[in-house]
């Protein structure tokens, strides 16, 4: 996205600028409000929330809800807190992101520098796979995971995310490599460099930015996934989103809102941190998935 381009030349007076800044400020409040509610209420005792004090700062600050959400809260049948599920999500995300990114890079390289008859159709097929409603594959995938002996396991989830992540990673690398001068590849080839040498020595060293975009996109998507997690995991292999939903929905008796908010922040923290550290790349990934790259 062209963030550095000049803004539109429209001229605005002082009064108009005051209104504009006020509106922009109000919308900042609107977007930050739920985050404020989550943070503030995760740090106060339950009684303060129940007495209508959701918007107020804690009178008595406490980290007990965080401790409870992390290690003792009731998730489904076990009082384990969210910790084991956080680990599940990490074990699921890391290999799925790594493998789908590598495959995407290779696919993008082939589809732009080693073109063949029908390559656009292949790419179109990969691309459409990104956008299908996954309800369409849930039934056969459940059976397939059973046949492969991966039903209800973290490796099973890795496999599913890998399969449905290839389309987007290929999209990123293909659009990026398309801008890369093919003359360089051709010159290297005349010098006797082979398929993999060209990839490793010429393409990869300049792939840093798109690799970051792809990794962030895949990480965010897979970490935040709920449908596959809910469909293909057992109690002990649930990812964070599914466990959080269980924590919030299934609590019988007193609803511990403060613990729910602490858990929600825990589930949000990894992707939020990535966004804060590398937001530019996250936005690029979003745009490349929708606007011409």
């Amino acid at each position: 996205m062209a963030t550095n381009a000049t803004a539109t030349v429209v001229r605005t007076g002082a009064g108009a600028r005051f209104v504009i800044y006020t509106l922009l400020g109000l919308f900042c409040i609107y977007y930050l409000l739920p985050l404020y509610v989550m943070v503030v209420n995760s740090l106060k005792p339950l009684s303060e929330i129940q007495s209508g004090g959701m918007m107020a700062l804690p009178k008595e600050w406490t980290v007990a809800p965080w401790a409870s959400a992390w290690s003792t809260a009731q998730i489904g049948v076990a009082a384990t807190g969210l910790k084991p599920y956080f680990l599940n999500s990490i074990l699921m995300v890391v290999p799925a992101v790594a493998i789908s990114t590598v495959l995407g890079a290779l696919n993008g390289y082939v589809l732009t520098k080693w073109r063949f008859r029908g390559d656009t159709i292949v790419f179109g097929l990969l691309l459409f796979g990104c956008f299908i409603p996954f309800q369409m594959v849930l039934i056969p995938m459940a059976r397939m995971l059973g046949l492969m002996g991966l039903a209800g396991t973290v490796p099973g989830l890795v496999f599913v995310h890998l399969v449905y992540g290839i389309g987007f990673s290929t999209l990123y690398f293909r659009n990026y490599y398309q801008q890369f001068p093919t003359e360089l590849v051709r010159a290297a080839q005349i010098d006797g460099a082979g398929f993999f040498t060209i990839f490793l020595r010429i393409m990869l060293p300049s792939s840093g930015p798109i690799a970051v975009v792809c990794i962030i996109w895949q990480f965010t998507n897979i970490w935040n996934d709920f449908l596959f997690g809910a469909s293909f995991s057992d109690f002990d292999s649930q990812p964070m989103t599914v466990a959080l939903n269980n924590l919030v929905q299934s609590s019988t008796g007193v609803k511990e809102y403060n613990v729910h908010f602490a858990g929600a922040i825990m589930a949000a923290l990894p992707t939020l941190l990535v966004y804060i550290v590398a937001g530019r790349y996250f936005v690029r990934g979003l745009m490349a998935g929708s606007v011409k790259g």
Partner: protein
Amino acid sequence: MTMTVQDRSRGGDWLRDALPKIVLSPSLVIVLVFVYGFIAFTFYLSFTDSRILPSFELVGWQNYSRLFQVRAWGIAIDNLLIFGSLYIVICCALGLALAILLDQKIRAEGFIRTIYLYPMALSFIVTGTAWKWFLDPGIGLQAVVRSWGWESFTFEWIKDSDMAIYTIVIAAVWQTSGFVMAMFLAGLRGIDNEVLKAAQIDGASNWALYRRIVIPQLRPAFMSAFVVLAHMAIKSYDLVIALTGGGPGTATELPATFMYSYTFTRNQMGIGAASATIMLMSIAAIMIPYIWSELREPK
């Protein structure tokens, strides 16, 4: 169109010619099996009497005719139309308004953009949890306003069958509108300033400038936003589960939640497969022309 490396001049051996295709083939096979093979499988199941387990007994269009007699599916379709149209219209209006406001040489633009866009990085389950309790009459907005002294203030949409679907719109708009803003902002930055300057010299007001010149030029951004939002609306699942669980009753049922509950908890796999097929058809109707136009145009 980029040039392609050709290997003919060196008379490379068979392996060297085939290597790129060999590298690509695992991905292609995976996609052919797990996307298109699975689509075919589910499509086939939608014409069978599958219940708990897949069955291969064909029953013709029976699942489809039964699907449209089920009340919950009718509710899901109505909800999708309400939710989808409000979601798309509000996101586009809000996104465009924010983009235009942010495009006025604003100080701290980057910082404000970061705030508007962060919800996109969150899981819908997190968003759903936050809004679920914020909109809960017992502890959320209603309780807070009452504790401030407005005793009769009432806001119980999330518990009201007729209004609950609008709470899904509220949360979904909160999550996505910043993204739409970013799409429009990118579009605005692509507009040629010379044309605007010329119009200004001719005495055009700011309002006319936007209405006559700027907004018409944002057509591609509108197209992208529409496609992305419509596709997200049809696939909406997590947010409903986290926010309302499809309730009260079946008041916020959407096609995605319907498919899941009919297939996996009500053991009506044939009907579930039929509903998934209809979801796929509606997404294909939106996405295929879009992908087609993206791939066809010369880069």
